[in-house]
């Protein structure tokens, strides 16, 4: 369960996020949708605690991301945008390192790695050094790393970037599996179709603010558009100056 209320964040004079509030419930896939530079990544970075909000607050499973950031991080598995594995370590060693950082060890950790390898279909390259891995393989390693400590909340920043069709399909399948297992999945994307195909809840962000949110049906209703893409354009258009 992730809660964000009235979060704002600036970098110097640039206001990256001006006012974002939403909730991502357990057992649901919440999509953060918005054009490039809308503030999606900044919002997610605040949630996995590498940035501090200037205003407002956010919590993961009730742990405040500023005052209880260690607990919030423990409850979160994060896949930052463009995250890569260590090239000189094998896929297993990469995942093991993160398991150890999360206080896991020994046979239990190795079992968990095997489990993830089965789930993400990475047994072919599990014992290989990750240097020269394809984008799909890299993403799988990064994902296994993020999930190794079985976090209840999973935050994925543009996870399908650079993946081919098959890898994208497999990732969507995995995201659904996580939802069905009761996880709170929050992911960002600028691809309308992806969000439409996957999300239970959609939060549309434009220029650092939430401009619309709800289930796909609710969004269509709110904007009076039958097509979700038109609904998105209508919601974004007003702040992006397109209309």
């Amino acid at each position: 369960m992730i809660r964000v209320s009235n979060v704002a964040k600036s970098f110097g004079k640039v206001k990256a996020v001006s006012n974002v509030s939403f909730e991502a419930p357990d057992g649901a896939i919440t999509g953060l949708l918005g054009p490039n530079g809308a503030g999606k990544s900044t919002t997610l970075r605040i949630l996995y605690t590498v940035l501090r909000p200037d205003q407002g607050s956010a919590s993961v499973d009730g742990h405040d991301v500023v005052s209880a950031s260690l607990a919030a991080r423990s409850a979160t598995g994060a896949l930052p945008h463009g995250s890569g594995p260590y090239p000189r370590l094998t896929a297993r060693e990469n995942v093991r390192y993160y398991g150890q950082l999360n206080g896991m060890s020994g046979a239990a950790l190795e079992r968990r790695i095997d489990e993830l390898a089965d789930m993400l279909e990475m047994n072919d390259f599990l014992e290989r050094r990750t240097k020269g891995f394809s984008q799909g393989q890299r993403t799988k390693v990064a994902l296994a790393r993020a999930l190794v400590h079985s976090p209840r909340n999973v935050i994925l920043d543009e996870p399908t970037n650079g993946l081919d069709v098959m890898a994208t399909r497999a990732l969507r399948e995995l995201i659904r599996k996580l939802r069905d297992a009761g996880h709170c999945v929050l992911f960002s994307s600028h691809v309308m179709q992806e969000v439409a195909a996957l999300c239970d809840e959609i939060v549309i962000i434009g220029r650092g603010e939430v401009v619309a949110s709800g289930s796909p049906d609710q969004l269509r209703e709110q904007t009076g558009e039958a097509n979700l893409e038109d609904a998105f354009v209508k919601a974004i258009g007003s702040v992006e100056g397109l209309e």
Partner: protein
Amino acid sequence: MSALRTVFVKEVRDNIRDRRTVLSALGMAVLAPALFMGLMSFVLETTVSDAEKSITLPVVGMERAPNMMAFLRQNNIDPVAGPENPDAAVSNRDYGVVLVIPGNFGESLQAGMPAPLRLIYDSSRTKDSERDYRRVRDVLRAYNSVLAGLRLQVRGISPTVVQPLAINVSNVASPSAQAISVLGVIPYFVIFSMFMGGFYLAIDTTAGEREQGSLEPLLAQPVARASLALGKLLATALFSAVTLLLVLLAFSFAIDLVPLEKVGMSVEFGLGKVLRLFAMLWPLSLLAAAFMMVVASFTKSFKEAQTYLTVVILVPTLPLMLVAFLAPEATATTMAIPSFSQALIITEGIKGEWVSLPLSLLSMTTTLIVGAALAFLAVKLYQREGIL
């Protein structure tokens, strides 16, 4: 604590697999002593032969000037029969210098006229030829003065009339003094290699990690950033310390191979000395690691970090070149300066005149304090958002 150990172990394992890291550590351990040996052998070679070593001089027409030949022999120049065609022989590099005594030499000498002599050498050739030429020329000039003096005396004039100046040249540089100045570059090599040993780790664990996109997920782990930063710092310091040990061992091996006894010097640099030096020098590894991490934290990419660090590590290392020439004293002031004090410990240690224990401890303490301050700064830099 366990997170710190996890980070430390991971960074060590990761970087042992990095060819650049291993090569720069081992490379320093092999290259520095090799360079030193080359330099040392060169110095020994030139200084020993500069001393009055006898040289052989081909002379055309030896029989025309027996007294002059005797004079040459007295001055350690051994005249031998010269070649048929002296000019060609010198330009073909068969000989460095050839003296030609023309047929009218004796006649001219007896007539009191300037007796012609011809000295042939090739200035485009090596230093050896040039040096031999000067030796011969100087001895011939001396002979010239002797003859002039005799002629004046015959005429009842004191030879001192034509010697208004009496120039005495003394070169006090003994071969062993020169050898000591070469030994003086060892501190520079050793300390530079301590920085090089941790060089790639300092970059790889900061700017490199950022560039390959592994820093952000790492910072999202439930681990205090201080543990991450210190784990990385200790791994860097370990590589620096291991390089230090390797380089000291390599020098101990190299010094054994240099024929220092040729100049009457003996430098004992055994395992005991290596360990004793290591025990006093290791704090600089921590300082070097923290120093390089602080600099690398400001950079955005591996390339950028490499560029900056290459320049920045000259700051604590390059002034050490001066130690070789200035031979500063170990005092409470000089021993409080990190890097400089380590250089003094090495210099004195090599000579077997150890810096006193209190001063050595002073060096270790101030180095650790400065290192801790830099480590604190490195941790602080790791904690700011801008590290991403």
